C-alpha cells in the first residue's frame, strides 16, 4: 500500500549548464518528455507534488495532459534558489509523513525505484558514477548494512542519484542550503544506501549519454 507517503518532484530549475531553452523535465528522451517516464514509473503513487518554476505554465500544461491528481507547487524564486528550497517548498505543510524526493531531470529504473519507495528507513539512492559533475557518496557499514557517510565531490564508488526518502518531521523547513545534499549533510540520521540504475543530465555530454543509455537504465 503506498500509504501516506508523498513524492516531491523538483522540476523548477533552469538547467543553465545544459543550455537548452526548455525545462529539463520536458526534454524528450526516447520519444517522450522525461517527466512522462518518471510519472509512468510512479503510476501507483497517490500523492505527488511537483515543484515548478522555470516555464511553470509549460510544465503544468504538459503534465496535466498525463495526470490530473497532482498538486503543483510554484517556486516563484526559482531563478535564485536551488533544489533544496524547491524541495522544502514542496514539503510545506506536510506534517509527519514520509516524503520521497526525485529530481525532474533524473531518469531511473522503473522497478528499482520501489526499493526506495517502500523502504522503511530513511534512505538515499546511489548509482554507478556516470555524469560529468557528479556528487559522490561516502559509505559506512553498520552491521553489514551500507549507510551514507557524507557527500563529496571526490570520486567514490557511488554517485548520488538525487533521490532520498525521509520523514518530514526530520526536516528543518527553514534550512537555507542551496543544494539538497548540503541540506542532507546537516541532518544527523543514518540514511540507508540503495543502489538504483539512474542518470541525470546537467551538461550536453550527459544528455547525449542519457539518450544512448535510456533503455538500459529505465528497464
Amino acid at each position: 500500500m503506498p500509504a501516506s507517503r508523498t513524492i516531491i518532484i523538483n522540476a523548477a530549475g533552469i538547467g543553465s549548464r545544459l543550455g537548452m531553452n526548455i525545462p529539463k523535465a520536458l526534454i524528450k528522451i526516447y520519444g517522450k518528455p522525461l517527466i512522462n517516464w518518471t510519472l509512468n514509473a510512479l503510476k501507483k503513487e497517490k500523492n505527488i507534488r511537483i515543484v515548478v518554476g522555470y516555464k511553470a505554465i509549460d510544465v503544468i500544461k504538459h503534465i496535466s495532459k498525463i495526470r490530473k491528481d497532482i498538486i503543483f507547487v510554484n517556486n516563484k524564486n526559482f531563478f535564485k534558489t536551488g533544489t533544496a528550497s524547491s524541495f522544502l517548498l514542496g514539503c510545506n505543510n506536510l506534517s509527519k509523513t514520509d516524503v520521497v524526493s526525485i529530481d525532474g531531470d533524473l531518469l531511473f529504473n522503473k522497478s528499482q525505484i520501489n526499493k526506495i519507495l517502500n523502504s522503511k528507513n530513511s534512505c538515499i539512492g546511489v548509482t554507478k558514477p556516470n555524469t560529468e559533475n557528479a556528487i559522490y557518496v561516502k559509505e559506512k557499514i553498520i552491521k553489514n548494512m551500507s549507510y551514507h557517510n557524507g557527500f563529496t565531490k571526490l570520486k567514490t564508488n557511488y554517485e548520488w542519484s538525487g533521490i532520498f526518502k525521509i520523514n518530514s518531521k526530520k526536516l528543518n523547513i527553514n534550512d537555507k542550503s542551496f543544494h539538497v545534499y548540503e541540506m542532507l549533510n546537516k541532518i544527523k540520521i543514518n540514511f540507508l544506501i540503495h543502489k538504483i540504475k539512474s542518470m541525470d543530465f546537467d551538461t550536453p555530454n550527459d544528455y547525449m549519454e542519457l539518450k544512448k543509455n535510456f533503455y538500459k537504465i529505465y528497464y
Partner: protein
Amino acid sequence: MNKIYLFDLDGTITNEEILPKIAEKFNFKKKMTLLTRSAMAGDVPFENSFSLRHKMLSKFELEKIRNVVEKISLNKFLVNYINKNSNKCKIITGNLDEWIVPLKKKIKCEFFTSKSINNGKKLKYIMNKGQIVKKFKCKKKIFIGDGYNDVSAFRNCNIKIAYGKIHLPPDVLINMSDYYISDEKKLCQLLEQL
C-alpha cells in the same frame, strides 16, 4: 479565526460558467460565452464586461433566470466540503446576488456577490474581489480561483490556489499562485494540510 477558504464560484464550484448557461435559455449563448471567456481571460475589464452582460440579461424575467441557475451543475465534492466547513468557507463571486439565489440554498456558506436593486434589474455594485478579501481579518486567507477577476483577490490573500478543473486559468493567475490544482479531491486534501 485562523484560516478561511475563499472560493470563486463560476468554473470553480460550478462545473460550467453560469451566464452563458442563462443566455442559452434565451438563445444567445454564443455571444455570452464569448463575452464571459474574454472577461475570464482578462481581455476585457471585468466591470465593463459584467455591466454589458447584465444589461443583456436584465431584460428577462428573474424567475426564468433563477430556473436556469437552479439546474446549474455543481462540483458535488467541493459543495460537500464547503457545507461541512461552512464557517470557514466563503464564496466571492462577480455574479449577481439576485440571479444566484438558488445556489445559496445548496451551498451553505456566506456569499459575497455583485449587488443589484429592483429585482436584479439595476446594478448597484460590481464585485471587486480584492476589496472584499482585504477586509477579512484572519491569519491565513486562502483563495481558490480560476479567472482574471481573481487576480485582485490573489493580491490580497496569503495563499493563492489556481484551480484548473474546467479550463486552464490565465497565465498571470498561475504565475501568481502558490499552488496549481485541477482535481477537486486534491484541492480539499491541500486545504486540510494548509
